[in-house]
């Protein structure tokens, strides 16, 4: 065992140790003395970000994620990262985690908060900690897209079943009719509001009348709702006409008015306005049919409007004084 061999053994060990140490530091992204500042951000969850991922500002890498820990309180994830000293952050900086590529590597980007107005960021307790948000990763997006496409499929199928040429025409004319009715209703209400100058004795009766009218309206709208199934456009239109007649008759009965009733009238008017607005929406777009089909909330909204009307009338029935004050004196 001569000296040279001994020295060589030592040399090999030292070289291996140095290579390992330098290699690990390098691969971990050591800065080799470049000054950096440590920062922290909190997240509801962090997706697939891991320590060592890039921290970017305007697309340029300025640092790396160092450590990810769950906050002791359990409701937040704390991510510590280092960025180069002297990097100026935007106003109200937030950290957004997102996939860097499609292959599972993530990044942390620093953005001004204003770029994400609709994202709800967790509010950090400490002043120097940034709020952060993890964007859904590709798998989540795929899942959502999947769901949407499934719904579309169901919808398309239903449309295919319900809509023949005839029903389409019927609905088109129905919509024209509904518009008419609504215009009539609106003018009627205006007339009523003007002519209600006195309190009538049969206010109660009147409200009941409105109630039944509203019921009728509800039935009518339900029928609209069910139109796709039942081919009763004709009778629906008759119903609407009847309803309008009813209301007109009602207004004739009510020959008195006061201020409170004016308010009631305004409310009724706004309700009808809503219905009208809805119908306008139906009208708009490509011949309106497609739009009706693409807005599943439409029927609900119509129904909601009627419900509102009914509630209003029920309220009038129960607390007429709130709306109508007897001015006998």
């Amino acid at each position: 065992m001569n000296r040279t061999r001994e020295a060589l053994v030592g040399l090999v060990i030292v070289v291996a140790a140095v290579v390992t140490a330098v290699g690990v530091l390098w691969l971990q992204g050591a800065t080799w003395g470049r000054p950096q500042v440590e920062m922290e951000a909190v997240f509801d969850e962090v997706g697939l970000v891991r320590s060592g991922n890039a921290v970017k500002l305007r697309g340029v890498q300025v640092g790396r994620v160092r450590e990810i820990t769950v906050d002791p309180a359990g409701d937040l994830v704390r991510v510590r990262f280092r960025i180069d000293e002297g990097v100026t952050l935007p106003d109200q900086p937030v950290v957004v985690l997102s996939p860097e590529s499609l292959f599972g590597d993530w990044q942390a980007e620093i953005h001004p908060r204003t770029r994400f107005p609709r994202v709800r960021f967790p509010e950090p307790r400490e002043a120097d900690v940034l709020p952060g948000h993890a964007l859904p990763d590709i798998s989540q997006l795929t899942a959502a897209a999947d769901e949407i496409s499934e719904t579309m499929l169901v919808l398309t199928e239903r449309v295919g079943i319900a809509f023949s040429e005839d029903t389409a025409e019927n609905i088109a004319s129905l919509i024209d009719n509904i518009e008419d009715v609504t215009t009539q209703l609106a003018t009627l209400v205006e007339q009523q509001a003007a002519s209600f100058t006195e309190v009538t004795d049969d206010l109660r009766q009147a409200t009941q009348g409105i109630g039944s009218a509203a019921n009728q309206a509800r039935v009518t709208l339900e029928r609209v709702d069910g139109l796709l199934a039942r081919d009763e456009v004709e009778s629906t239109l008759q119903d609407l006409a009847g309803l309008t007649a009813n209301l007109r008759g009602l207004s004739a009965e009510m020959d008195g008015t006061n201020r409170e009733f004016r308010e009631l009238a305004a409310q009724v008017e706004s309700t009808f306005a809503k219905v009208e607005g809805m119908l306008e929406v139906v009208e708009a777009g490509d011949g309106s049919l497609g739009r009706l089909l693409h807005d599943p909330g439409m029927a609900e909204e119509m129904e909601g409007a009627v419900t509102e009307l009914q509630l209003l009338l029920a309220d009038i029935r129960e607390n007429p004084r709130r709306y109508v004050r007897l001015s006998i004196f």
Partner: protein
Amino acid sequence: MTERILAPFSTIGRRAVALAAGIGRWGMLTAETFRSLRHVDVWGRLLLQQMAKIGLDSVPIAVFIAIFTGIVLSLQASYTFTGAVPLYFVGVLVGKTMMLELGPVLTGLALSGRVGANIAAEIGTMRVTEQIDALETMAYPPVAYLVLPRVLAGIIMFPVVTALAIAVGIGSGWLTALQLLDMSTPEFVRGLTLFFEPFDVTFAFIKATSFGFVVTTIGCLFGFHTRGGAEGVGTSTTQAVVVSSMSILVLDAFWAVTLL
């Protein structure tokens, strides 16, 4: 007739007993090896010599293997990734594979041939020429004198050689990517650092250390139990290489199951 039916079973039985006995002998030798740590005066001055023999002398073969592994990994990765995957993933593949698998395992297998065979042959020869008995009569505990320095040298030097092999392998993969794949250094380095975790290195060292332990103890075991002259030495050497190579692969799977 019954004999013919029973023959395969008795073979299996004999093999099982032999395997159990072998594991038992290995366990006893290992235990004796650790007990021999107290004879520092015996093994202390032999350690460096064995480190040179087991570690230093193995560097060239390990580096040679690593160079070609790196080249092949790089080229095959790019071949596999064509089109679908960005080329910087060549860096990921070369780095991860060298660190987690090929660095430790190929080095281990190469050294099981070189070191395991050497140990088994040397100790086996000493056994059949009564040199081990001679050690005993001169009051040298044979395990402390022969086994312990080799096992310690294996435990210390396998990780050292493996570290060099990994570095060289990644280096050669990198050069290949640069020269033959039209990749740029930043691209390769991006792949290299992308999924790197310090645990990868720890994992490589755990593997290398255990391989060093297994290869040296198995070499010593077969050497110690050598019987019957030159032929016996030949048999022991072959068995040592076969068994330690198999143990490396089993251990490799074991670590992958337990640590990853």
